[in-house]
Every structure is written in structure tokens, then in C-alpha cells.
């Protein structure tokens, strides 16, 4: 079974993969320098700070003297990361020894930040122009609602009800990989990775979408470096403050419209001016990009009798629960269901693993049960795992059977050989039968031919 895993890893990996010219342009922006610095591993951050006011190249040897023997692997990782992100450049002096120096632009920007202080990307608008700004709670509710609408839209366009501004072509891009459609008459079905996507936590989902959005930027005629710069800049705005859209370029205004559909910003229109208000999703962007875990309030209670109560009004939650549980009835603020063998088999067939289900249940445990250890009853988690392993009772491995060995010695030698290559599946020394994985067929052939000679 092919293991499809959505890699929702690091935003900075993506930055690092940009071509050198683009990276250097990015470092003109001091916010990006700041965001990049914060994303580095602790030791690398320390090195940058240490080198900040050193203008001459530092030899690799003297840097190695900074670390204790135990920390050498971390040192290597940090140095590699710094070079990969072009924060530090490696040069070789006359004696062929490598020396390191900070990227001058990066260095200059950070020095400026430390001494003169960073400025806000743009000034918030005075409150007399913006009539009434939403409170932080309202804004968060708005962000979550927007995001869930988007997800519902993503899974099934028909059920969402409300239309979004995201063009259908954009939607197609997001849906690529998550949905598959065999023919036009049939509604699209979620793929394995689509199911996995739904069970990820919100930050990981957001990151996945943003990543898709960035990688497809070129197709839409948007420079990915510009887009990354704008997204990072956005994360340095203050949540809940209004910012005038006049200060943006046309391109950024277009991006903003897409982002408002994702719930990253709220757009508001005054009498003359219009402004955008970043939500928590936007300001957490640079944090969640570095670290995809976060805490949130859960809503699910599972009892030892496999009954499931989800205190949620969200349609999306209901859809997600339906993936692996039988929803029995729905009250205004409560979804009641049960986990049983049939519902789980359906989930397993769709490519969801038991671990994903369990971690989803644990992550979303209702605060009342979250305090308990374990938050999901043990008999339920065990049973979910058992039902999964039930499906995998037989494992198939392509293999070859060898018999009629000329002597015991040849047989033993062949066994040892196969064992060495990790391909021995079964041996019967009495009847001199041997079963070996098909992977090492050529090596085995070669070996047996040599034995004959």
C-alpha cells in the first residue's frame, strides 16, 4: 500500500529552496530577516547574534571551538542551515580553509533593527476613520468561520452554501491531490491524502494551503518571492488593528482578497477608505510556519462504550466525524455518534490510519476529559488499533523459492547470504528449501553461479 503523507513541514525549507538571486532580494526586507532569524534552530540564532558585529570572515576551525564535543552534530546542522538559507556564506582562503561570513544585507538589517529598532510595516489607521472595529473575539470567530467555509467548500462545493471569491481555478489547485474524480457524472471523492488533510490540525492545514498557494503563484503570474515577502510582512502586523489598503500595491491587494477568503484578514469598507484587519491566523503565520503545533479548545468526549459526543455547531466537524464514526443525531450544539467496526472499516478503506484517528480524538478532546490521562479511553484506542490490524492479517511479499541445492554447505551458504542482505523470508533446512525476497534476485543469482564454479 503506497504511503501518501502530506508533508506540512517547514516554511523555511521553501524559502531555502528559492534561487539565490531571489533570496538575496528577500533579504532587502528587514521583516524577512527577522522572520528568518526566528525560524532558525537555537544554536544558529546564537551564532548569528555572535557574528553580528564581526566584519571579517571567521574560520570554520575557530567556530568549532565554540562548541562542546557533545554539541558537534547540532553545530553542523546549524551551520548547514545558515548556509542553505544564505544567511552565511562559505569561502575558502588561500590555505584552503573554509571561513564563514554573514550575508552583508542580512547583517546590516539586523544591526539596524537592534540599534534603531524595527518599525511597524505600516501604521494602523486612526480610530476616528474606522467606524467600529470588531473585537478580538469577534475577529477570531470570523477567522474560524471563514476557514471552515473554505474547507467545506474544498471538500464539497455543493454543501458549502455560501460562495467564496476564490476562483474555481484556484479551488481546483487546492483540491488537486486532495480530491479525485473518476468521471464527470460522479461527484469527486476525497483521496487518502484528502482524508489525512482533514484530520490535521488547523495550523498544518493552513500551512498546506499556503504552500500550495505559493507554489502555484508563478502560474498566476505572481512572483513567489514577492508573495512570501508579503505573507511574512503580514505576520508582523498587529491583530485587530485596521490598516489602509492604499498602502498596498495592486498585486498585494489581489493577494489580500484571496487571504480574506481563507480568514487571514478581514476586509472592511468605510465611506472613503477601505482597510484590512489581520486576524490571528495571519499574525500567527510566521509562528505556525516554524512550528506546526498549537493548543486549542477541544470539543469531543468519548466514552468507554464507544459513544462519541461532540460539542460543536460546525458543519465541518460533523463532516470530519462522519469520516470514521456513525453520526446518530445532531442537536443544535451537539453531535452524537458512535464508533463501530463498520464505520472504522470505511475509514481504513479510505486510507485513514488508526493513529490518525486516535491523534485527532486526542487533540480535540473536550477540556473536561482532556485533563484525564488518557483523554481517550484505553479500550477504545486499543480496539481501533486492533480493528486496523485485523485488516492486515496477510501480508504479501514477492518472493522466489529455491530448492534442490547440491549440498548442505551450499544451502547454508545461500541462507547466510540471503540473511546478510536482509532478504531471507523462510528456510527449511531438512528439505533444503529456501524462500528469498524478490528484491535480491539478481544478487542471489550471482551468488549461486559463483557457488557452482
Amino acid at each position, binding site marked *: 500500500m503506497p504511503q501518501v503523507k502530506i508533508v506540512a513541514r517547514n516554511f523555511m525549507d521553501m524559502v531555502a529552496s528559492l534561487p539565490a538571486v531571489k533570496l538575496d532580494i528577500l533579504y532587502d526586507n528587514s521583516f524577512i530577516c527577522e522572520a528568518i532569524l526566528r525560524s532558525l534552530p537555537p544554536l544558529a540564532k*546564537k551564532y548569528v547574534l555572535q557574528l553580528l558585529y564581526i566584519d571579517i570572515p571567521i574560520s570554520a576551525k575557530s567556530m568549532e571551538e565554540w562548541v562542546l564535543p557533545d554539541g558537534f552534530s547540532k553545530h553542523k546542522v546549524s551551520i548547514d542551515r545558515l548556509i542553505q538559507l544564505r544567511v552565511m556564506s562559505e569561502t575558502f582562503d588561500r590555505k584552503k580553509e573554509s571561513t564563514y561570513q554573514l550575508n552583508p544585507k542580512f547583517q546590516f538589517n539586523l544591526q539596524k533593527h537592534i540599534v534603531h529598532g524595527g518599525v511597524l510595516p505600516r501604521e494602523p489607521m486612526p480610530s476616528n476613520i474606522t467606524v467600529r472595529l470588531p473585537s478580538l473575539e469577534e475577529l477570531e470567530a470570523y477567522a474560524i468561520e471563514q476557514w471552515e467555509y473554505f474547507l467545506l467548500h474544498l471538500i464539497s462545493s455543493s454543501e458549502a452554501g455560501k460562495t467564496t471569491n476564490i476562483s474555481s481555478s484556484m479551488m481546483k489547485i487546492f483540491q488537486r491531490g486532495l480530491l479525485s474524480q473518476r468521471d464527470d457524472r460522479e461527484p469527486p471523492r476525497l483521496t487518502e491524502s484528502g482524508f489525512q488533510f482533514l484530520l490535521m490540525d488547523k495550523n498544518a492545514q493552513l500551512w498546506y494551503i499556503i504552500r500550495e498557494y505559493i507554489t502555484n503563484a508563478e502560474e498566476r503570474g505572481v512572483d513567489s518571492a514577492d508573495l512570501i515577502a508579503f505573507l511574512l510582512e503580514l505576520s508582523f502586523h498587529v491583530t485587530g488593528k485596521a490598516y489602509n489598503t492604499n498602502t498596498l500595491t495592486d498585486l498585494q491587494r489581489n493577494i489580500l482578497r484571496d487571504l480574506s477568503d481563507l480568514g487571514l484578514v478581514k476586509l472592511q469598507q468605510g465611506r472613503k477608505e477601505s482597510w484590512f484587519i489581520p486576524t490571528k491566523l495571519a499574525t500567527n503565520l510566521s509562528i505556525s510556519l516554524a*512550528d506546526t503545533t*498549537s493548543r486549542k479548545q477541544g470539543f469531543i468526549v468519548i466514552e468507554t462504550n464507544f459513544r462519541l459526543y461532540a460539542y460543536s455547531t460546525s458543519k465541518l466537524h460533523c463532516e470530519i466525524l462522519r469520516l470514521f464514526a456513525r453520526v446518530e443525531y445532531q442537536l443544535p450544539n451537539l453531535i452524537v455518534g458512535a464508533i463501530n467496526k463498520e464505520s472504522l472499516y470505511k475509514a481504513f478503506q479510505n486510507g485513514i490510519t488508526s493513529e490518525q484517528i486516535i491523534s485527532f480524538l486526542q487533540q480535540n478532546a473536550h477540556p473536561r476529559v482532556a485533563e484525564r490521562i488518557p483523554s481517550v479511553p484505553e479500550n477504545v484506542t486499543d480496539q481501533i488499533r486492533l480493528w486496523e490490524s485485523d485488516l492486515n492479517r496477510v501480508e504479501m511479499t514477492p518472493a522466489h523459492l529455491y530448492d534442490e541445492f547440491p549440498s548442505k554447505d551450499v544451502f547454508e551458504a545461500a541462507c547466510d547470504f540471503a540473511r546478510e542482505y536482509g532478504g531471507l523470508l523462510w528456510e527449511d533446512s531438512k528439505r533444503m528449501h529456501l524462500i528469498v525476497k524478490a528484491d535480491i534476485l539478481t544478487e542471489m543469482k550471482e551468488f549461486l553461479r559463483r557457488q557452482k564454479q
Partner: protein
Amino acid sequence: MTPVSSKLYADDVSLLMVLIDTNPYFWSSTKNTAFTFSKFLSHVLAFLNSILLLNQMNQVVVIATGYNSCNYVFDSSTSSMQRAECLLEKLEDFVDKDDSLSQENSVDGVGFSLLSGSLSMALCYIQRVFRSGPLHPQPRILCLHGSPDGPRQYVAVMNSIFSAQRSMVPIDSCIIGSQHSAFLQQASYITGGVYLKPQVSDGLFQYLSTVFATDLHSRGFLQLPRPVGVDFRASCFCHKNTIDMGYICSVCLSIFCKHHKKCSTCGSDFGEARKQEPSASDQRRKTPDLNR
């Protein structure tokens, strides 16, 4: 600011309590050298800004240690702008107030700053953070100290050191004066912090960023200055003199420079000294290592 509980702290998130010495008598003594208070502040501000730059969750609290008083002058979690420059205004108020307190009694010499007070304030703040919930940044204390040790504060400083040791808070010390500080040597030694007296005070920022910016997580892998020698001498409780040898109460371990009939701390009777005239070396007992 987002509430603390919603954050998940990485290894290197730190809460740095910085105690800066604002003793006017000390800073007036450095006037002749190139290293003035304003220069010192510019180094420290750059350092504080760089700590805040390293991680969005890092927190910096600055406590000014004056001659008569001490006070919080900056807290990055409450100030709206995450910039260390905000402390300047409060610092000025503090120095004025501190100055007005000291006009009544004249001071001869450099005088001592109230290290024990600011250490206790830092520890109180850290305790509050500890009790705020299961998730909190890793705290450490950095003393930027120049004034000589005040022997009168011995007991209070030692108590602060032990309470820092109990709550596993390292005390780093950076000596900006000309003399070593026995108090801070002991503080850093006992709590596992770093003690450093920079040779070139003009390069203070480099010392601060190289040594004292190291978060507790990275300290496991980096070479940091090791203590060369620690002055373990104690002050007596009766006259507050620093002594090499003295008497200690066998009940409460109070230290005295002379023989007393009764312990002034716990009140236990020492009784009569032994009748036979003891030799001088018998009479005096060495003070114990306070590093238990």
C-alpha cells in the same frame, strides 16, 4: 499579546531578568574612564533588543538596582512596543527618586547598591511566572553589577542565592566594575550560572551577546567561561565584616567574628567556653563552605 496559555514553548524560549546597577556613586567613579553610564546603557539596550529579536516569545524584565531602592523599569510582556528603549523614561524617574532618598545621609566612598533587593524582586517575579501555569519560558537572571559588595547585605543575598538554587534559576553575573564580586561569584557558582568580568568594557555588547545571550537549552553544547576561582568568604552577622575565620552557631549556622554568650539569631545559649585555656587555633573554627 496572545495569552500565555495558548502558546507552546520551544526549548529556547527564555525569560531574562536583567538587574542593572544604577548606583550613582559607582558611576561617578567611572567618569574618568571611557566607560560611562550612557555608553553602558547603549550596549545593554542593544543586547535587550537582540534577545527580543531572537524569539517572539522571549521576555525581558529589567530591574534597576539603585543605592537606596530598586524597581522594575521594563517588562517586555506589558509594554505595548516591544522595544527596550521604553525603559529609559522609567529609568530616569527611578534614578531621580533613588537620588532624593539618599540626600539625607551622606555617603563616603563608592557605596553599595541594593543587590539583595533586586535579586529578591527578580525571584518574586519568576515565582509568579512559575505559578501562572504549566507553560512558561525558562527563566534566568543576569546581574550587570559594578558596585562593590555590601557586607551588610550578606545574609539577604545568600538567602536569595539559595532560593534561586532551589527553583533552578541560574544567576549569570557580568562585572562591569574594576573589582571582582565575591557575592556574585558565589551566586553564579551555586546556581550554575556564568560569572564573567570583561577585560575590555568597550566591547560589552560582544561579551553579552556571546556569553549571556545563550539560552539554557544551548548551554549544553557551547563552551562558556568557567569559574576560575570563587571567593567563599562570609560576612559575620554581628558586625557585617568579611572574615576568613570566625565562630558559628551549632544550631542555626549563624556566623560571628567574636565569641558571644547567646546566638543573636536563634537565641540558643552557647554556655561557658571550655575552662581550660584553649590555644588560638582551637578557639577559632573555620567557617563552613556555604556551598552545601
